[in-house]
């Protein structure tokens, strides 16, 4: 990372890291290449600007949440509630709209409602110290239930034209708003994770929260922020989903959390926390989206798509194991991020 404070021993470790990560990304790159080749040969219509926009647009709500989920998992936590929170914020939006609240105000309240979710989760996890798995599992059930209570078994629509257009039509060039938001979010996430002290602290917490705490890192605040960001991103994705679909139902985004987590793990982020990079996640996003799109265009059914993605995930985990072995890291299931411990202990300021 070109830190001036690196010791020589750390540099050696980093070159090992470098090799490891690049092997991983090379592997993902190869899978992506294979997917693209398959698509080009099997599906005409694949190579067009419209299709590339479609490819993102059809799953854009998921990949927006992928950004924050990457942060959460790197920090050694999990957020299973994201899909339910998407439904929750969309349901709040729809219920307010149905009761005559101006849509702009309803959007603000819907986002705030997802923020409240984040605060509750953050409080229970960071402050009370409950495991995020349990808290967000409860959230998965609870917020979905709350959404269903608001929307009941109906489908609420009839949003103003501008809202539908926002979700369905191009904003900048061929890109709709949601895709623009995703690109911006992803870029910001990349910079934060790779280039800032906060990003490095996330790795330390994920690797060993005690070490982080002893290094004067405010773990509570970071975790609080993580779950707030996660819920806000999910809330935003829910609103965007409502705009794209034009209607809101209680079952909106059901099951998305697993697809989101799948992409993050495929990107090389360790489920144990402490390692993974945005570049890998970017490749994973491209693999999954291209695979779904290309298979769809080649009329390969949903079952096969899901099966292939599952196989790639398992294959990638096996490959990861093999690579770990190659680098003599068998003893620890976690691998260390770039200059983590050292950097954090020398740079506690600004956290």
């Amino acid at each position, binding site marked *: 990372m070109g830190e001036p404070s690196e010791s020589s021993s750390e540099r050696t470790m980093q070159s090992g890291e470098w090799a490891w990560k690049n092997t991983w990304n090379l592997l993902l790159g190869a899978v992506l290449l294979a997917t693209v080749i398959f698509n080009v040969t*099997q*599906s*005409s*219509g*694949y190579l*067009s600007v*419209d*299709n590339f926009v*479609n490819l993102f647009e*059809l799953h854009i709500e998921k990949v927006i949440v992928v950004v924050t989920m990457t942060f959460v998992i790197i920090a050694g936590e999990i957020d299973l509630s994201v899909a339910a929170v998407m439904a929750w914020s969309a349901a709040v939006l729809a219920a307010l709209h149905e009761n005559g609240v101006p849509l702009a105000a309803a959007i603000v309240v819907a986002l705030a409602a997802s923020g409240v979710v984040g605060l509750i989760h953050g409080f229970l996890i960071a402050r009370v110290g409950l495991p995020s798995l349990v808290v967000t599992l409860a959230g998965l059930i609870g917020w979905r239930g709350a959404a269903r209570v608001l929307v009941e*078994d*109906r*489908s609420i*629509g009839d949003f103003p034209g501008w809202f*539908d257009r926002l979700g*369905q039509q191009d904003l900048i060039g061929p890109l709709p708003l949601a895709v623009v938001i995703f690109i911006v979010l992803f870029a910001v996430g990349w910079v934060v994770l790779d280039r800032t002290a906060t990003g490095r602290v996330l790795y330390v917490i994920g690797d060993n929260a005690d070490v982080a705490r002893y290094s004067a890192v405010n773990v509570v605040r970071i975790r609080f922020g993580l779950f707030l960001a996660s819920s806000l991103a999910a809330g935003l994705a829910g609103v965007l989903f409502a705009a*794209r*679909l*034009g*209607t809101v*139902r209680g*079952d909106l985004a*059901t*099951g998305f959390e697993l697809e989101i987590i799948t992409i993050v793990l495929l990107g090389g982020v360790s489920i144990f926390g402490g390692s993974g990079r945005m570049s890998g996640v970017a490749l994973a996003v491209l693999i999954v989206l291209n695979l*779904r*799109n290309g298979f*769809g*265009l*080649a*009329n*390969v*059914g*949903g*079952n*096969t*798509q*899901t099966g292939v993605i599952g196989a790639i995930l398992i294959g990638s985990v096996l490959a990861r194991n093999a690579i770990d072995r190659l680098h003599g890291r068998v003893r620890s299931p976690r691998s260390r991020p770039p200059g983590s411990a050292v950097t954090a202990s020398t740079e506690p300021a600004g956290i």
Partner: protein
Amino acid sequence: MKLSKLSLALAGVLVLSAAACGGDDDDTAEPDATDLAPDTEAGATSEPGAEPTTASEETTPAETEATEAAGADDTAAGGGGGGGGDFSSILLPKCTGIAVFDQANEGALEAAGELGVSEAEFVGPASCTDSTGQIEFVTNAVTQGVDAIMISNNAGDQIEPAVQEAADAGIAVVAWDSPIPSGQGESLFVAQVDFDETGQVMADMATEILGPEGGEIAILSASPDAANQNAWIASFEEVLAEPDYASLQLVDTVYGNDDADESYNQALALIDAHPDLKLIMAPTTVGIAAAAKAMQDEGLCETVKVSGLGLPDEMRTYTENGCAPQFALWSFVDLGYLTFYAAHAIATGELTAEEGATFEAGRMGEYTIEVDPTRDSGLRIVMGPFSVYDESNVGE
């Protein structure tokens, strides 16, 4: 490449079985699932001679289909690239892996064979709970540049923008089984039956089963937000209100969400809650089979009967042992067949989707497009009729 070989082989098998069934399918009244099994005897005899239909090509339909299947993966790609008169389409069920939708595909394959055009690609979401999956398939079909999309809508209004986009791209969108609620972007809805007729048929079956003394009946439905279920229940209640059916008392309506387990438990809960219950009416193929099994397992088939909408294949044992003496269904094979004919006619410009327009659908005869009275806007044709199954014909 393995995948395409596999799909090629599959396509071949489907084509052959469709050809085998093609000859003996003229009898529209008995569209039961058993004729889906490739009847080799019929196939062997019917192949050369029995092409009584519109296929007027020099080659037999089977051959035509075989050659087209060989280039199958370009149906998608080509967007009619197969040359003049070729026809590319997708048949999109609510989800794959459901018997009735496979039957609809059989019907569509049969129609494609008769018309001598490429068969529809039968694709769909893996799970029926994935309501937005269909949007992806419709969007991809637009990219593929297909001529027609045939959809059993499982996404409510949410499918609208995607369907509208398809319509704007000049693709004929024909809904079947379940329509686009607003009718937006949809050329035509092929309704399986007149939804009002469903209530009448269910009431008649109840009377037939229970006899003049009647008794308490209850409804086991799918999910509380399934539009067609609710329409059928409403029409059932309307018919029950008539003096002729005064002996039937509807005491409860419960929901099993088209889940076999849940429906089974709901059926058991019904007999606990209503000790005098005489009949469970389940207008869903999942619910009726689960309810019949529940009554059979409890040894209650003598006191509580089951009826509704069911698949002959799944109901045969229960009908023969008296648990579910009568049930009804329309033919999904015919529904797929008619849908393919309609989509083909609209996409090729032979038929303009407007009120009063008529077209010829192969063995099923002529249909006239009418305004759909069950929706605010939209056009439909009604297939009908119901087939009522009992001991005498369930095994056929």
